[in-house]
């Protein structure tokens, strides 16, 4: 595989135990092949087509679209999330297979952005979902989106992109936060059953 770059090679040399090498290799494959589920939750959706098409060509970096959550590795949430959308996003996220990552585009998922006083959008995405990479900007340019993917790749290679594990470990916290918004109209319990070892429910 001659497209190992210098950084990768340097990392590889530092590894000592065989298991570490296996982990490293698995992470390398994970980072080189990213199936993206582009969920157009907001304005940023308009910059996804340029990112994956001829001008910016994300496929060069192994990023390609996936049709369904089951096949996807990363969910790209492009912009503000209305409450109604958030529910679907959580459902979609829970359907994805581990290891799974979240990239949030734009200022709105970070702190509400220019919709900070809107009654229908959430202000901090990372209260409800574990976000691995946020790309700031209103809206981020395709270069920035690609840069976000590069950051995610670095994170995967280092083995730190473990948002899904975080979600599993702190499921109570996340579910409570989600409950603050949805109230009694929470997502049905079976959507996250597999996160509870004892089969608990919300």
């Amino acid at each position: 595989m001659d497209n190992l770059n210098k950084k990768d090679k340097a990392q590889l040399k530092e590894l000592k135990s065989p298991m570490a090498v296996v982990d490293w290799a698995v992470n390398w494959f994970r980072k080189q092949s990213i199936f993206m589920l582009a969920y157009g939750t907001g304005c940023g959706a308009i910059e996804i087509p340029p990112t994956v098409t001829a001008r910016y060509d994300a496929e060069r970096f192994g990023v390609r679209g996936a049709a369904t959550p089951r096949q996807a590795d990363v969910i790209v949430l492009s912009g503000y999330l209305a409450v109604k959308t958030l529910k679907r996003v959580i459902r979609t996220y829970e359907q994805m297979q581990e290891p799974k990552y979240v990239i949030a585009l734009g200022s709105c998922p970070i702190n509400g952005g220019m919709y900070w006083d809107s009654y229908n959008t959430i202000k901090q995405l990372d209260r409800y979902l574990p976000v691995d990479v946020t790309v700031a900007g209103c809206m981020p340019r395709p270069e920035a989106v690609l840069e976000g993917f590069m950051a995610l790749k670095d994170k995967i290679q280092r083995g730190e992109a473990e948002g899904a594990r975080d979600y599993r470990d702190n499921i109570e916290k996340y579910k409570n936060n989600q409950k603050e918004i949805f109230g009694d109209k929470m997502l049905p319990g079976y959507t996250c059953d597999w996160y509870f070892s004892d089969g608990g429910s919300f």
Partner: protein
Amino acid sequence: MAQDIITIFHGPQHPGITGNMSVELDLLGETIKRAETHVGYLHRGFEKMIERRTVLQAFTIVCRICVPEPDPNEENFARGVEELMGLEVPEKAKWLRTMVLEMARLQAQMLWFAGQGGSLGHYISPQWAVADRDLILDLFEELTGGRVYHMYITPGGVRRDLPEGFLGRLGHFLDYLESRLPEYDNMLLRNPVFLERARGVGIIDPATAREYGVVGPNLRACGFMNDIRKDEPYEMYGEVDFIVPTETSGDVYGRAMVRRAEIEQSISILRQIIRRMPAEKEIMAVLPKNHRKWEVPKGDTLVKTESARGEYSYYMVGDGTDKLRRVQVKGPSAVHAITLLEEMLVDSQLSDVAMIMNSLGTNPPEIER
């Protein structure tokens, strides 16, 4: 039989839905027996936010109402404020606005082309069209500083004068685009499979179109020659020559042909603008003294702009303070994407949903704001 019908949700996360909305479909086999649209996934409460912001603050957010084509929103908002406040816009600014609106129309049509090809599983057309659209975005970036959101057409004029040599570069781009159009035709619009699929599908008949108030290319594909640019000319549209292309079939193919012809018309309008752009420097009206607090007098007005997908209407109410009492937006999708779509989808096939939604130019953020 009732038990043979399955109900599925098409969207909101689905590659075949144009944006973040969903259609609930009752399917018998693959034939749609009942459709119900669900919107609201993008509702931000713009009208509430504009209520809380002064005119200039609100101006920066109105363009976010419609992502694929933000400029008609700016235009409407600016023209509404000017009408309420009685501002007189200099001629150069009007020409610049017309130019920006036409460029926006052009890029929106390219985006439509991309969607139309993608919805049929023809993956060349999105790639080419989106890449060519990016060249317009580059021009926008040079002129306004923004790629997608420009915030260029301000109440009272435009924000910046032309950069040096801009019109020449625009001309080059138009030449390039014109040379590409035959390829687009060969690739998709004359493709036998496209003809097979697009003809006779998603028909809006003229009476329904009138009754529902369908606008834009969707209306013109039914044989009506209605275009706000011609009917109630604004900015410099009264000065430039263009024709309003029409078709009579009212189906997906007819709409595609109307849009295709509109690309040519936009190119021709832009060429005229390049030729006739005045050299003067005045691009702003005489503005109220206090820039931070424009007081909009009491009164209301309705302004309309023709976007690539049809007419945008803004109902704007001033109440004598520095904030607008109400700005109500009706995007072109609001008429066809909810009730009309539900009726159109009945008895069509699941495979056609994406194609019909694309050809109508359905764009959820402008329905929900």
